[in-house]
């Protein structure tokens, strides 16, 4: 605005030209001028989807030991005491120090060791669990529950601390268990539609 005012005082023709150009530019890039602009602060209030690189992960931390307590209170009723399954799906396959490396049967897919990226467990638990009160766990609690499940699945050590830095670095045992390795669109024209 400072530059604008200065130009204004120097030459009336320049700002009029600049203004006209910018209105035209806006008209071209945003033809209907509908919708309400969102501030970065507003976006932070709902932007909870976490991608495979974990860029959106918030601060906080947790360990398997802390997670065991939270799991017992918030998750075990449906998923079983140690995540072996109950009225809801099993979450554990393999055992501490001994991860299941696949292949996975269809009934084993719900175990967190099936997931190709460690962020998937964090993202889903954070937004959608527990099913009776989704989104009610704090970031610390989500890190801890994920640590507990990964420990029970043999993916991390009991003493490992999970946070925004360490979580995305975990190598999942089934990382290469998906075809195609990276989803593609449009599909390879050489592949039949049944593929």
């Amino acid at each position, binding site marked *: 605005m400072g530059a604008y005012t200065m130009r204004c005082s120097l030459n009336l023709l320049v700002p009029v030209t600049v203004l006209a150009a910018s209105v035209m530019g806006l008209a071209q*890039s*945003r*033809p*209907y*001028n*509908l*919708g*309400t*602009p*969102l501030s970065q602060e507003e*976006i932070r209030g*709902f*932007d909870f*989807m976490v*991608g*495979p690189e974990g860029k959106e992960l918030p601060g906080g931390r947790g360990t398997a030991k802390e997670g065991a307590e939270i799991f017992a209170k918030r998750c075990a*009723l*449906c998923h079983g005491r140690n995540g072996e399954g*109950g*009225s*809801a*799906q099993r979450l554990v396959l393999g055992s501490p120090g001994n991860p299941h490396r*696949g*292949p*996975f*049967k*269809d009934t084993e*897919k*719900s175990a967190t060791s*099936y*997931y*190709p*990226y460690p962020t*998937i467990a964090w*993202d*889903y638990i954070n*937004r*959608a669990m*527990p*099913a*009776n*009160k*989704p*989104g*009610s766990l704090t970031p610390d609690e989500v890190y801890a529950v994920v640590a507990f499940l990964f420990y029970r699945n043999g993916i991390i050590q009991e003493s490992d601390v999970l946070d925004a830095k360490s979580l995305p670095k975990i190598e999942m045992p089934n990382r*290469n*268990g*998906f*075809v*195609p390795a*990276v*989803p*593609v*669109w*449009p*599909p390879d024209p050489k592949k*039949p*539609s*049944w*593929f």
Partner: protein
Amino acid sequence: MDSNRSGRRRFLKHAAALAGLASGAVSSASGQSAGSEAQPKDVHIHGEPSRFATTLGSGRGVRLRLDHMTYYTPLQDSAGIITPASLHFMQTHSSRLPDIDPQQHRLTIHGMVDRPLSFSLEDLKRLPSVNRIYFVECHGNGSSTLHSTDDPKMGLPVQYIHGMTSCSEWTGVPLSVLLNEAGVQKGANWLVSEGADEGKFTHTLPLAKAMDDVIVAYAQNGEPVRPEQGYPMRLLVPGFEGPSSVKWLRHIKVVDQPYMTWNESMNHSIPRPDLGGKSRWYHFEMAPKSVITRPSGGLKIPGRGFYEITGLAWSGGGAIRKVEVSTDGGRSWKEANLQTPVLPKAHTRFTVDWAWDGEEAVLQSRCTDERGEVQPSLAELYRNWGITDVASQKTSRAIHINAIQPWRVDRDGSVHDAMFS
């Protein structure tokens, strides 16, 4: 049906467990409120069908499973290509549907855009709209486990096997219009969308598809999209597997890579023998498929003589070019009439004349789409996927099944599912 019954038991037990855990809050999601008090219902306000008007039961069929609540379109009673909104199939992974006040609801577009924006329902209605007729099909439709029955004499009606496909006229704003308003940045290739349901249903979509023919729909068959179909707004992704069309659409984030979220990675990926036990995921498009809807399993035809065989064909790859029908178990095939309109990525109604001689007959249809893709038999499809023995075929949980459906007409006129017999 044993697995179905035990599924229902588990569903109820799980629901009870959740109710026991619940702390009284109705819902914490924004834009939701408790329903208003029940009023005496005037059935003429929205109209109801005749209680005599259906051949099998009354409207949609239902299966309640632990993590899927499903209502099936009664295809055996369908005519033409449009599914009434009240009979559109419905599947949800949440046990309760969101109850959204559109005054409180906003669709946000953010991530890799120049101008993050939010849109109200009123904003959408001011923008240029399109009306398009498209099918929506669950990628689990017609899968092997849906053929099970404890009454081998009757078989299940077609609705319980293939009733997770429906076709509507959708009205809404092309997603490309909204994305252009927001200004997609260089390097963006994917979108990830989130619904306002309790389970925050989330799916990834290629940006190229989003800019092509995807709609943010707010109306269906001339009325506002119903709550079970995503009121006040949903994605409608033509030709793609149903979960892409996120209901109760709330957030669209523009990103530079697929997000491999829980439903996509876990629920919607399937281990396959031909891939060495690795899982196929992100299958996106539904392949060409057809099914005879009348006569079909569970119906009984009254005696020899003339019948018009009718059914539906559709393909995620475009328009249907040809449907053939066999009444002799696949020995000979006759080209069916395609009733107009024949639209891309929409149900197409086909008919063929048939004179039943009173002997056992096996009826089946097979379609070809505009790309020349031909609907396979189940044996061909499973052979491709390395699922070779019959026991595995019967219990396979494979999705994206577009196999030919045989119906056996017995001499007494009863019609049975002959997929596995």
